[in-house]
């Protein structure tokens, strides 16, 4: 059997093993990597950075553990940025299963930035209603959230007493893994002209560029790459930055296998045609 024929019949489990090595090795040896910040991520960063200290930023957790490796680093980076800017953070969510991830991120970031629950941030949790709730908050947030995640009335927190609807929210951040970001943009951005930035999984990112082009959102943080760029902008490398060399090695291997596979296929076909 010739080399190319042998390659075309290689056991797929060997390819899985190669991919596992390509991803695991860079995590261990940590090669140096340069993060180049793209315009959509810079715009998202600037939208947060422009807010005056004391402004309210609402972060919607619209992802769950299935996409946490991509979106959780964004949440941590945005929280660090918001706390550093002394913004008041309201965390909510359209996916109930995502809220424990918000708690994990808040419990990690708030103590390191000396932020106190109730004074600097609140987690108002999840309520059902989807798009109807998004629209309803434009009238009065208390129609849906009278208490926070733990059942404490939101009016017992000083900064929350001034928050009634989107007019009191400087920026909405949707960290999404599905079409929830589209809903925020269409229902809240369209109706209330709310400034929005979106952090999303790589799968969703291409669909959101149309909103950025139309000026409907201020920025996009797309996938692990976007998260690493945001980490670079706040000068605080985290899990996303650590993952980028693994991402590059993984992509490199896939591209190499694509080339080998196609060359092998073409040569095998040529040989078969000659045989006829």
């Amino acid at each position, binding site marked *: 059997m010739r080399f190319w024929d042998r390659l075309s019949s290689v056991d797929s489990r060997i390819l899985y093993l190669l991919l596992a090595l390509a991803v695991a090795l860079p995590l261990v040896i940590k090669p140096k990597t340069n993060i180049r910040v793209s315009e959509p991520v810079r715009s998202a960063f600037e939208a947060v950075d422009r807010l005056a200290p004391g402004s309210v930023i609402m972060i919607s957790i619209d992802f769950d553990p299935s996409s946490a490796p*991509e979106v959780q680093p964004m949440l941590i980076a945005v929280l660090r940025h918001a706390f550093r800017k002394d913004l008041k953070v309201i965390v909510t969510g359209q996916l109930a299963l995502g809220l424990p991830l918000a708690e994990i991120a808040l419990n990690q970031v708030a103590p390191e930035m000396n932020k106190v629950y109730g004074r600097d941030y609140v987690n108002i949790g*999840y309520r*059902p209603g989807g798009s109807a709730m998004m629209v309803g908050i434009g009238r009065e947030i208390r129609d849906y959230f009278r208490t926070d995640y733990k059942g404490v009335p939101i009016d017992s927190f000083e900064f929350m007493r001034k928050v009634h609807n989107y007019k009191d929210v400087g920026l909405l951040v949707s960290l999404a893994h599905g079409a929830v970001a589209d809903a925020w943009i269409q229902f809240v951005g369209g109706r209330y002209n709310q400034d929005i930035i979106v952090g999303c999984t790589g799968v969703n990112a291409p669909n959101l560029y149309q909103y950025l082009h139309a000026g409907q959102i201020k920025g996009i943080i797309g*996938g692990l790459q976007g998260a690493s760029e945001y980490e670079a902008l706040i000068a605080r490398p985290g899990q996303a930055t650590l993952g980028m060399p693994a991402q590059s090695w993984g992509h490199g291997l896939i591209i190499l296998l694509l080339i080998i596979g196609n060359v092998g296929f073409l040569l095998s076909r040529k040989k078969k045609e000659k045989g006829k």
Partner: protein
Amino acid sequence: MLLNIIGTWVAASLTLAILSFLYKDNPFYKVAEHIYVGISAGFAVLYAWAFDIYPMLVDAFRNNLAQKNYLEAWILIVPTILGIMMLCRSIPKIAWISRWPISFTVGIGSGLGLVASVQGYLLPQISATLRPLITINNFVVYVGVIATLFYFYFSKEHKGALGVVSRVGIIFIMVAFGASFGYTVMARISLLIGRFYFLLHDWLPIIR
């Protein structure tokens, strides 16, 4: 501390059990798969109670009664009945009853969605497309939109000038598919990185 260690070991074992499917189907994978489905269902029920039914119905009813807002309290019977009607779907003989609350939900969804689609999608997108042809980007957007629209025009055979334009449309569509696929590959690798990070950082403290 001990609970954290146990939790990490359980999570690591389940991760390895799921990944073992890449070698071949096996009992460890099956166990992990069933545990995942069961826990997800249990979690969903818990959350439905904790975040939907209790605060929006039980607590709201009690609070309104306590504050003597009788109308706001008793009107909650309407969504309660609609919710019970929705559950009839699981009983074949009376499954038809669930159509009423479903129509109610569809009606609300359509009403809200129609406005949002026009106000928050269609008009801003049209406005963003119809821009002066003074930059290359705007020109590319024009060509892309027109060519793609022509590709989906099926009332006339794609021959001659229409054929050429629709072929340009295919190129734009393929570029969009390529970008989407590239991002999807990145997303999947990211998930793998996330799991390996967990295994090498939280479980085996190889990464510091």
